């Protein structure tokens, strides 16, 4: 175990920003979001969980896939694949951010399909994660197989002890970073960090058992009355989806700019009407009830059915906390689990 003071962590982040594209929680306009970090900026690791997750490190909201350039009107256009460049480091992610990232792997990296853009970002990103001291009212990571000091997906796990952090290297890359002279030996602070992890988990209370959720949600598949009641207060915006560390659906658009055009990939969201709109004009998910059914079903039923029972949810609670009308996904899944005919 190593230890680094707050001041040195900032200096380390500044140093790393010359090698990596560093994304860090930065407070601006009253909110905290992950922003590109440049020397001279301050880190806002503690005041609150960043409003938007660190998903953009491995799946950016907009990314270029292809450039099309037509030099002359009558000649064949030139196509250039635009692969991501460089390395990214996320400073101050939360364990839910890091775990969320892992849930995208089986989708983008399969035997048949290997998404080159995703793989490049995934292999060239480092997560320095901060263990959580206490849960928010919307946190439920311990119910979906994670916890406030979960190391899954992180390269280094930091735990606030005194005026600095105990640093636990998780991966080889993390190990390399903690050899920097900014780090000192943690001494007995390692035990204090352990105690904090235990305390944080205790504060979360009894975990909810979601094991019956996949089957129970599927049982309600054709019960539109159920979904209409559950979705009544939803306004069908995309806040939940875009905040979510595990939502990975994307859209592809050709931005035609005359002689040049760009094929871009952007986040999509299943709460939008256009998400399943077919060319014929038919929409298999015409109402918000159909769409919310998909969102909840995907996370707690279809994904776990496909990928070994793991929920496509890291329990960060951003979809609940950030929802303009307070739609609570926990309540919806519970309602399906406890549904009595």
């Amino acid at each position, binding site marked *: 175990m190593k230890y680094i003071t707050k001041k040195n962590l900032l200096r380390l982040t500044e140093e790393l920003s010359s090698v990596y594209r560093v994304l860090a929680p930065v407070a601006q306009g009253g909110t905290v979001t992950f922003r590109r970090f440049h020397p001279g900026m301050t880190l806002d690791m503690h005041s609150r969980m960043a409003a*938007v997750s660190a998903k953009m490190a491995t799946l950016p909201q907009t990314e270029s896939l292809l450039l099309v350039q037509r030099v002359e009107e009558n000649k064949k256009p030139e196509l250039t694949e635009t692969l991501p460049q460089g390395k990214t480091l996320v400073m101050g992610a939360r364990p839910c951010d890091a775990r969320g990232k892992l849930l995208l792997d089986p989708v983008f990296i399969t035997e048949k399909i290997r998404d080159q853009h995703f793989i490049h970002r995934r292999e060239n990103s480092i997560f320095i994660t901060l263990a959580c001291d206490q849960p928010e*009212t*919307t946190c439920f990571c311990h119910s979906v197989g994670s916890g406030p000091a979960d190391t899954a997906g992180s390269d280094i796990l930091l735990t606030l002890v005194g005026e600095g952090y105990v640093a636990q290297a998780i991966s080889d890359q993390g190990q390399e970073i903690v050899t920097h002279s900014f780090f000192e030996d943690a001494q007995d602070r390692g035990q204090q960090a352990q105690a904090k992890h235990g305390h944080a988990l205790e504060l979360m209370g009894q975990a909810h058992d979601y094991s019956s959720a996949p089957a129970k949600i599927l049982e309600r598949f054709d019960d539109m009355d159920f979904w209409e009641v559950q979705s*009544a207060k939803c306004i069908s915006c995309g806040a939940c989806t*875009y905040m979510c560390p595990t939502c990975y659906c994307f859209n592809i658009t050709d931005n035609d700019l005359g002689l040049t055009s760009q094929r871009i990939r*952007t986040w999509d969201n299943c709460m*939008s*009407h256009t998400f399943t709109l077919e060319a014929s004009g038919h929409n298999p998910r015409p109402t918000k009830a159909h769409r919310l059914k998909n969102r909840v079903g995907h996370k707690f039923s279809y994904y776990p059915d496909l990928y070994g029972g793991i929920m496509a949810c890291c329990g960060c609670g951003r979809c609940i906390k950030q929802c303009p009308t*307070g*739609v609570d996904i926990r309540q919806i899944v519970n309602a399906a689990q406890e549904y009595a005919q």
Partner: protein
Amino acid sequence: MSPLDDLKTAIKSRLGELDCVIGWEQGYDQLHATPLFIRSEADLDRLVIGPLAVHNLATYLPGLRGKKVGIIVKGCDSRSVIQLLNENLITRDDLVVFGLCCSGVVSHRKIRAALPVDPGFVEAVDLSTDTLSITASGQTTILHMADIAADKCQICQYPNALIADVLVGSPQESKVLTTLACQEEFEAKSEAEKFAFWQETMSRCIRCYACRNACPMCVCRDFCISTSRDPLWLGQENTPGENMMFQLIHVSHLTGRCTECGECERACPVDIPLLLLRRYMNKQVQDVFEHRAGTALEQTPPLLTFKVEEEGIKERGW
């Protein structure tokens, strides 16, 4: 009887003829309310009103057209109901309006700024007439309602529902109409400063369209210009320019229709101060057309009508 009891009695007597009544209940913690769709007397027990009932429920009405619906409205929310009626987007006969006399709602952003820790750690909330006592992470903070009231409440002209089949509570007085400090501060900026401000603010936007979907007057719903692919009116890439373009489209489409309920700004998950644009636009509408949306039935929004010569627009003799 308290206004809440009066309200419950009134709803109980009409519930039988309605598909649902839309109100509020406690949300995921004591600090947050959430919309409640009351379908039975058992649901009615969960009803809450007061300063935490921030949502403008009129947003749901166009989507429920064809059903018999009851709705609970604060003064500001009632303006949205009136505006929707004036635009023929909802049907009066299908609607029962339970009006409140409102003494203001909180701004969750101001609460967040005033607390020593994030409100996500809230443990207990105690509400009195003028204060809100919040315990979070073991620390108790007493906040004065005047300091945490939503901006719109500080200059509220219509605290009592302007349209109501049943009005509960004792009528409240209007506030003095002044310009908000945040608005003055923004408008005093130079063009270059404003540009830099939006450049930075819009770089936070994630285009989730919570602002659009929370807006009671954004009635295109599934057929919004922003999601049209052919023609592609708005680039799908998430850049400050495209994001701002969407906001300007949103504001333009609300000209003379915006009731300044503030739902767009409240819904924004990354705290973009969208009301700066709305208030500015509404002021222009007020100056040119002497029109304030949703303040009277039978009003026609200025851009939904045509006059050969507008009194407020100098078209000749520059």
